[in-house]
């Protein structure tokens, strides 16, 4: 969950482009993991690397082929463009895979460890660990490598970055690709835990918008903490409300956040 939000935050924070197709990218990551697992027998905990790579290419292509052409156009145009991309992605998934939910089986997912009185679901533990490791790797990439530094520079001040000789367009493409790769990996990693269908994309998008906005747009640490916060809120909602009302929590949360704290708990910039 958090990893997904980190990806969105990266794309938004760097380029001020709202990726409406974010949840759908996650769904594509899930279906890729499912294809790999069911056709080639690749375990999703290995296959997520391939999913991340595929989504990286897709993100790069979307940025280079579409977003890049209208970076200077009014904000509304980008929203419409990404809405179009989201529509195409969600419904292509619907056409190819059908509306029935599927589930990826991982041999590891069935296992349970008993630690004293607690029992730990191995799949969840593994997903959590890998997501944490990936987030840490992303952090290192952004703060310790040259490319990462130039991404942050372009986010801070694109004109300044251009002046000191950064190829801002290339940096944008890489950032979009990395963001998409994050969400692809997140999709592949959640696939063994959660049954999914193409319509999952929208709720995933909303969840990640929630997380990113709570955490503060463009703030990676905020996105990570926001992810934990939203997950807790939704689980609490699930305990107290009937399952069909569970979705209500995330949408109501979104409205409240938008109205009262649009800059997020950890963000500094006003929208």
């Amino acid at each position, binding site marked *: 969950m958090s990893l997904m939000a980190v990806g969105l935050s990266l794309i938004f924070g760097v380029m001020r482009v709202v990726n409406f197709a974010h949840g759908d990218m996650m769904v594509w990551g899930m279906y890729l993991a499912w294809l790999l697992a069911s056709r080639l027998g690749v375990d999703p905990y290995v296959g997520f690397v391939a999913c991340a790579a595929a989504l990286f290419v897709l993100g790069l292509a979307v940025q280079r082929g579409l977003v890049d052409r209208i970076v200077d156009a009014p904000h509304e145009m980008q929203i419409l463009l990404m809405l179009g991309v989201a529509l195409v992605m969600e419904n292509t998934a*619907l056409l190819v895979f059908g509306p029935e939910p599927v589930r990826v089986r991982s041999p590891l997912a069935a296992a349970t460890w008993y630690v004293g009185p607690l029992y730990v679901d191995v799949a969840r533990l593994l997903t959590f660990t890998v997501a944490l490791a990936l987030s840490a790797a992303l952090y290192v990439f952004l703060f310790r490598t040259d490319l990462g530094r130039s991404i942050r520079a372009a986010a801070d001040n694109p004109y300044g970055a251009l002046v000191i000789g950064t190829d801002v367009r290339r940096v944008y493409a890489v950032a979009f690709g990395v963001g998409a790769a994050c969400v692809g990996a997140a999709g592949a990693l959640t696939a063994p835990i959660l049954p999914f269908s193409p319509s999952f994309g929208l709720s995933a998008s909303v969840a990640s918008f929630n997380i990113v906005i709570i955490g503060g747009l463009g703030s990676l640490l905020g996105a990570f903490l926001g992810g934990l916060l939203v997950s807790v809120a939704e689980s609490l909602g699930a305990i107290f409300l009937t399952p069909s009302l569970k979705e209500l929590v995330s*949408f109501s949360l979104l409205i409240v956040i*938008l109205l009262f704290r649009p800059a997020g708990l950890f963000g500094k910039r006003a929208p």
Partner: protein
Amino acid sequence: MRWLGVAAAAVALLLPALLGPYALAIAINVLFFAYLGQAWNLIGGYAGQLSAGHAVFVGVGGYATAVLAAETGLTPWIGMFVGGALAAALGAVIGYLGFRFRLRGFYFVLLTVAFAEVCRIIVTNWERVGGAVGFYITFTGDPRRLSFQDDRAWYYIALVLLIVATSIVWTVEHRRFGIYLTAIRDDETASEALGVDTLRYKVLAMMLSSFLTGLAGAFYAYRYSSLQPNAVFGIPLSVEIIIRPIVGGAGTLAGPIVGSIILTPLGELSRALFGQGGWHGAHLVLYGLLLVAVVLFVPQGIVPWLRHVVRRRPA
């Protein structure tokens, strides 16, 4: 331009006599979605506020009309105005909150989508109005209950709705109200500095738009004799509403109509071609591709682009 309008009206009046039942159904949809697009055009096109959850007003208007008729026996001819008023009230709430808290662009889009989804989930869980199964209206064939034996009645009602909405938009366009709206769209800060009460005019535009959309809800409910929460509150309907004016040209009088004449038959065709083998969503893929293409190649929409082409090469 005026003669073109008169000729179009004459064709529109005579058309039902020439069409078979299937073509008539498509023609009704062309008018109906042009009407919805025109209603959206007020807030989305002229005022430049991208409301992406407009289906919620169709849902509220439709459910209010149908439930009132079932519970109190009120005729839908009056009920639809109650539905429209309720939709306008909701529009006022969404608009006031969104604009008061200065949500722009992407944030406003999210707010409208979130409201539509909240309403969808509430109605889905509200057993009194049918819950997830939906609300069904007994077909009476009685015109006094907004029910007709002959589909041509729906055609003419949709035509009247479209003409009314287009006249309203035309009137707004030529009055101070419309000028304020386009000023807000083009530069909100500057118009505020010049003394335009931007909050007030945006909320007014939102209310007018949602009222008209609410009337469409009654049309929808009685034409199909049923309402399903996913169909009338869902995002696909919102997309259907906004895509026509955007493709045709948002903020132009002819945009929603041109958009609907192009897109509605296209959508129906792809549904007819791919809908059988469980290929749902094909028309949405098409809409998505079109949206991307329009943004990349004719960002103003088809009508302004045509005008531009005609002006460059005077006939």
